[in-house]
């Protein structure tokens, strides 16, 4: 059963041309690019890139969820100053996933671009990144106050944290469903 998604999602050579219903030529070009072919058809390309994508996911979502829970008051006693350096780590994770995600996308671009869960996932990721940038700025500005007392965390910052949580959990939800819908 665990194998099912691989075969659903990895069109074999000849399936590719049948698969596209008049999509943009750029997606066909991506699939036939050397990157797309390496990821889609070489023995180790897909697993290696997928493995990187899982590592990046754990870093990005893991760190943002910790920060979100801290802002929401679920986690207490961890200084906000600590999260400043964790942001750097989270952005490294994001770069890993942007690169590995683009490679995965290139292997089946025409399929992904017509997949609703994929489009929802990408929207959730972009929204999550934008919220993350706002959170990082807010953190830099409000650091001293927030570390002074948890009651200094304003409602709008908590709302950002909640949005961030929804985006990342939503991205995982939609991302997993790509293989099923």
């Amino acid at each position, binding site marked *: 059963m*665990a194998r099912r998604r691989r075969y659903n999602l990895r069109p074999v050579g000849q399936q590719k041309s049948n698969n596209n219903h008049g999509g943009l030529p750029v997606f066909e070009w991506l699939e036939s690019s050397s990157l797309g072919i390496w990821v889609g058809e070489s023995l180790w390309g897909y697993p290696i890139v997928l493995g990187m994508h899982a*590592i990046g996911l754990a870093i990005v979502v893991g760190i943002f969820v910790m920060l979100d829970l801290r802002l929401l008051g679920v986690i207490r006693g961890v200084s906000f100053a600590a999260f400043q350096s*964790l942001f750097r780590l989270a952005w490294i994770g994001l770069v890993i996933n942007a690169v590995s995600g683009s490679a995965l996308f290139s292997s089946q671009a025409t399929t992904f671009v017509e997949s609703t869960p994929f489009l929802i996932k990408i929207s959730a990721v972009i929204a999550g990144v934008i919220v993350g940038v706002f959170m990082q700025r807010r953190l830099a500005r409000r650091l001293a106050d927030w570390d002074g007392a948890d009651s200094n965390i304003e409602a709008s910052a908590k709302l950002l944290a909640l949005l961030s949580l929804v985006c990342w959990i939503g991205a995982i939800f939609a991302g997993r469903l790509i293989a099923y819908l």
Partner: protein
Amino acid sequence: MTEALVQAIEGGAINTWVLSTYWLWPLLEIIHFIGLSLLLGSMLVVDLRLAGFLRQIDITAMHRLLPWAVIGFAMNATSGFLFFMGDPGRYAINIGFQVKMILVLIAGLNVLVFALRINPHIDRWERHGDTPAIAKAVAWVSLCTWTGVLLLGRLIPYIGTG
């Protein structure tokens, strides 16, 4: 032994439930992914601090982060157990799964070393200072084993399935 185990599971109540509930498998995958993010996210912070990095983090903050690793692990142990019950034949003989379970075991023993030899002393350490060698060793073992667990888990469908 493996065959006997697989035979005992297949056709049983849990096996039937997992296989016949069409939305369960994707739901378990989602839970497994959220759990891994909680586990690895919190462990990453804890391990980097234990390894001597991120010294602006008060070392006693470990006590606040570790419960989230436990929650993540519980989510993944539960969903993982149900994956196995749903498709025991495929998992039991999969080399990726077998090595993953060995790594989980090593990571578990490593947690034991942490709980017995490190955690009781943390409150006496300098809060923003360097960490002892044993803490660094435990941190690196943890980072390597959990990363290995993540990678092997993701690769189960691609390697070692007969």
